[in-house]
């Protein structure tokens, strides 16, 4: 059974590139273009990992993270924050809200992102 990754990101071009990269590595990818859909899919589809952008419509990434951690059904899902925000206060806020890894989009290549995902699965 391939691992299921939920990618919550509003930018369509990024959604396409990252999802295709993850699919090419053998993962199943669920796509959500806003925070509300993301939260709903996290509850109904029970993914193995969530890749979460912070500036997204309807609910921000921080709100999604807080709700995921509040719900006993989703609080143990590993979350990788994938964002353009790089201020220390945002990193601290996301990590203290329960994110496992914090990645700034501009600092990583596709291979490195894939590696971080594999690390999260301890593959």
């Amino acid at each position, binding site marked *: 059974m391939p691992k299921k990754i939920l990618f919550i990101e509003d930018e369509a*071009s990024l959604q396409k590139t990252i999802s*295709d*990269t993850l699919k090419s590595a053998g993962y199943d990818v669920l796509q959500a273009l806003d925070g509300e859909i993301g939260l709903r899919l996290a509850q109904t589809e029970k993914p193995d990992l969530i890749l979460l952008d912070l500036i997204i419509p309807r609910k921000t990434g921080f709100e999604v993270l807080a709700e995921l951690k509040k719900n006993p059904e989703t609080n143990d899902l590993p979350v990788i924050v994938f964002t353009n925000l790089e201020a220390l206060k945002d990193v601290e806020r996301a990590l203290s809200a329960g994110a496992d890894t914090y990645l700034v989009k*501009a600092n990583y*290549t*596709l291979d490195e992102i894939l590696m971080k995902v594999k690390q999260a699965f301890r593959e």
Partner: protein
Amino acid sequence: MPEQRSIARYINPLYSCRKYGVPIWQCPQFLFVIMGMVILVAIIATWLLANSKISDPFIVNLIVLAVGAVLMILSFIITNSFERLAEASRMKTEFIAVISHQLRAPLTNLRFSLDFLLSGRSSQVKTDPKEYFTILQENTKRMGDLVDSLLMISKLESGNFPLEKKEVSLEQITTNLITKNKSFTEASKARIILAIQPELGKVLADPFWLEQVVSNLLDNAIRYSRGGGQIDITLQQKKNRIFFAIKDQGVGIPKDEQKFIFEKFFRSTNALGKQTDGSGLGLHIVKKFVKLLGGKIWFESTEGKGTTFYFTLPIIKKL
């Protein structure tokens, strides 16, 4: 308590200097303290000198008072201009930070797409490489648009912006733009109702830039009406001015954010919730142009109900 802390911060020159990020000798607040000391010393020195030369105490006091007043006015002018310089420097730093952030998003998209195409992964997943070329094309355009807007702002702020002034029909510009945006309007499920007062006068303006103003306002109205809604555009003539109004039933602007709406790079939280790829430059440019064309711009907005933008332009008087 917080109020006391902010007063203490206000009178503490070192705290204010950190805010501007300039060396202490270029910091307006610190220079103000130094100026105060110089004034005190100068007044005492004048008093001592005048006292030793002039016997009438009234004249001595008058001289000291005059010297003090002149020094005070001078120091006020100097520190005031320093403060404006420091503020401009702070804004420039902020400007660069925001620009880098805005350019970074499309750049990252370009880099990821090129990475993907070059990695050969496209053969492993059923994807059409054409889609990636579209991503490259869209993001290049996004960067180009941002650079164009920045150049325009820079020209506008430096004050050397050549404007061609000729007789223009605002009615014609508006009608053309509505036609041009037909598919975007339909895709957003919006409906445009245009009401034009008959025999509307012409305005004296640069047609290209006037089109940019209307285009920006129309684009915003359609963009934030996504999901349906009526857009009413009204063109009226009152005395020697043309009134343009565009009313949408979109997300509206939260009350506490309304005062920032024409500021460079400002994006309403409601706008961010609907559309995250705007640059926050459109309305800033629109306001600058309307002013340059001799008009006024303002708006009314209720969160959740919609926004109406108005602008006026002087019409050409018929002889």
